[in-house]
C-alpha cells in the first residue's frame, strides 16, 4: 500500500462500509424473536469485537515468533501494535457481552466458558503490557514479551477447548454464548449484517494496526536502527 491515493480510497471505502453496517444493524436486520426488545442487535458489534480480539492475538503470536527468530525490531513493533488493539477490542467484547447478558438474564456475568475465555484473553493482554512496562531496555523488553506471548498462546487452547469439556456439563446451556453462537436459525438479513460487520471490523483492525506500525517505523528509521 504505497500509493497515497489508493490508501485514501480504501479509507473512504472502509468508512462507508462501517456506516452501512451500523445502519444495517439498526434498520435493515429484523428484530430477533426470543430476545428482549432490540437487544439482540448488539450481536452485530459484539461478535466482531471478539473476533478481532482473537485475530490480534494471532497477529501478535506470529510477530513474536518472528522476533524470537530474527530479532528484527520491526517485529516487536508489530507485536505491540497488535496487542494494543487486542486489548481494546477484548475490553469492548467483554463489556458488550456483559451488557447483553444483563439485558437478557439480569446478570452481568454468567460464567459461560466463552465469556471466561474472552476475559482471560483480556488478562493476558493486560499482563503483556504490565511486563513491557517493567522493562526499560528495548531489546530485552521485546524478547521477554515475545516469550510471554508464545507461552500464553500455548495455554489458551486449553481454556477454550479442554476446560469447557469438563466444565460445560456443570453449567446451564446458554442460548447465545458470549461470541454470539446463536443456536437459533439466523435469518438471512441478520446473517448478511453480521458478516458485513465482521468484514468491517477486520478492516478497522488492519487500518489501525497499519497506522500504528507505520508511525513506529518512522520513529525507528529516524533512530537509524531499522533492519529492513
Amino acid at each position: 500500500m504505497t500509493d497515497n491515493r489508493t490508501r485514501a480510497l480504501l479509507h473512504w471505502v472502509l468508512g462507508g462500509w462501517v456506516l452501512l453496517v451500523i445502519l444495517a444493524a439498526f434498520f435493515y436486520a429484523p428484530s430477533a424473536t426470543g430476545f428482549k426488545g432490540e437487544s439482540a442487535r448488539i450481536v452485530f458489534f459484539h461478535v466482531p469485537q471478539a473476533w478481532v480480539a482473537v485475530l490480534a492475538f494471532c497477529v501478535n503470536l506470529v510477530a513474536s515468533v518472528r522476533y524470537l527468530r530474527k530479532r528484527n525490531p520491526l517485529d516487536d513493533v508489530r507485536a505491540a501494535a497488535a496487542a494494543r488493539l487486542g486489548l481494546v477490542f477484548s475490553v469492548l467484547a467483554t463489556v458488550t457481552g456483559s451488557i447483553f447478558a444483563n439485558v437478557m438474564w439480569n446478570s452481568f456475568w454468567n460464567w459461560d466458558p466463552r465469556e471466561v475465555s474472552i476475559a482471560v484473553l483480556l488478562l493476558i493482554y493486560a499482563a503483556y503490557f504490565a511486563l513491557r512496562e517493567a522493562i526499560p531496555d528495548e531489546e530485552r523488553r521485546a524478547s521477554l514479551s515475545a516469550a510471554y506471548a508464545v507461552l500464553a498462546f500455548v495455554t489458551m487452547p486449553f481454556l477454550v477447548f479442554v476446560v469447557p469439556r469438563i466444565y460445560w456439563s456443570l453449567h446451564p446451556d446458554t442460548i447465545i454464548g458470549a461470541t454470539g453462537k446463536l443456536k437459533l436459525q439466523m435469518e438471512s438479513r441478520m446473517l448478511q449484517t453480521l458478516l458485513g460487520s465482521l468484514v468491517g471490523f477486520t478492516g478497522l483492525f488492519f487500518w489501525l494496526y497499519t497506522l500504528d506500525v507505520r508511525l513506529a517505523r518512522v520513529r525507528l528509521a529516524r533512530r537509524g536502527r531499522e533492519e529492513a
Partner: protein
Amino acid sequence: MSGVSVEFKRVGKRFGDRTVLAAVSGTLLPGQVLVVAGPNGAGKSTLLNILAGVLRPSRGEVVYRGSDGPVPRAHWFEHLGMASPDMAVYEELTALENLHLFARLRGLHRSDADLGALLEELGLGSREHSRLVGTYSSGMKQRVKLAQAVLHVPAVLLLDEPSSNLDGAGHEATAGLVARLRERAAVAVATNDPREITWADARIDLAL
C-alpha cells in the same frame, strides 16, 4: 583444549539514544594478552560482556574461531572463563562447593585436592575452603571468582579488573595465574591498574 581466537569487528553498543561503546575492532589470539584500557564509562566492561556473549552488540560482530572453524554463539561459554565485578559466586555455599558446582556444570570431575590447590594458588588458605563464601571478605570473594574462571583451563579468558579488592599478595597470585594461562589461552584484561597494563602484548584504548 585447543586454541580459540576471538575476532571482533566494529563492535559497538547503544542503549536507546546513549552510545556506551563506540565501534572498536581487534583480535584475541592464543598466547597473547590484550589489555583494554580507558577511563571509567568508556565501555571496557561492555566490550568484555559482548566478547563473552552475555550482551549483544548493536553493531559489528564477534567470531570465535576454533580448530574446527567458527564456534556458534551458544557454545562460546564452553571455551570461556570470565571474572568481572558484576559477577558473584554463591554465598550460601562454601568455596569448595562453589568450585565443585562449576566443575560439574562444565562436565568436569575435579577432586577436593585439585580445587583446594587452585584456591591456595590464589592465596586462599585451606582453613577457609569449607567456610561459607558469605562470611568472606571482598578480597577472598574475588579469589573464589577468579578460581571459577580458570578451573576448566579455558581457551579464552576475560578478566575485568582482576586485582580489584586484592592486596599486593593477591595481585601477585593473579599475575602468576595469568602468566601460567597465557601460554595457551587468549586473554583479554579490562583495567586501569598500571601493574596489570604491563601484562599487555597488545592494547586497545577506549575513549569516552
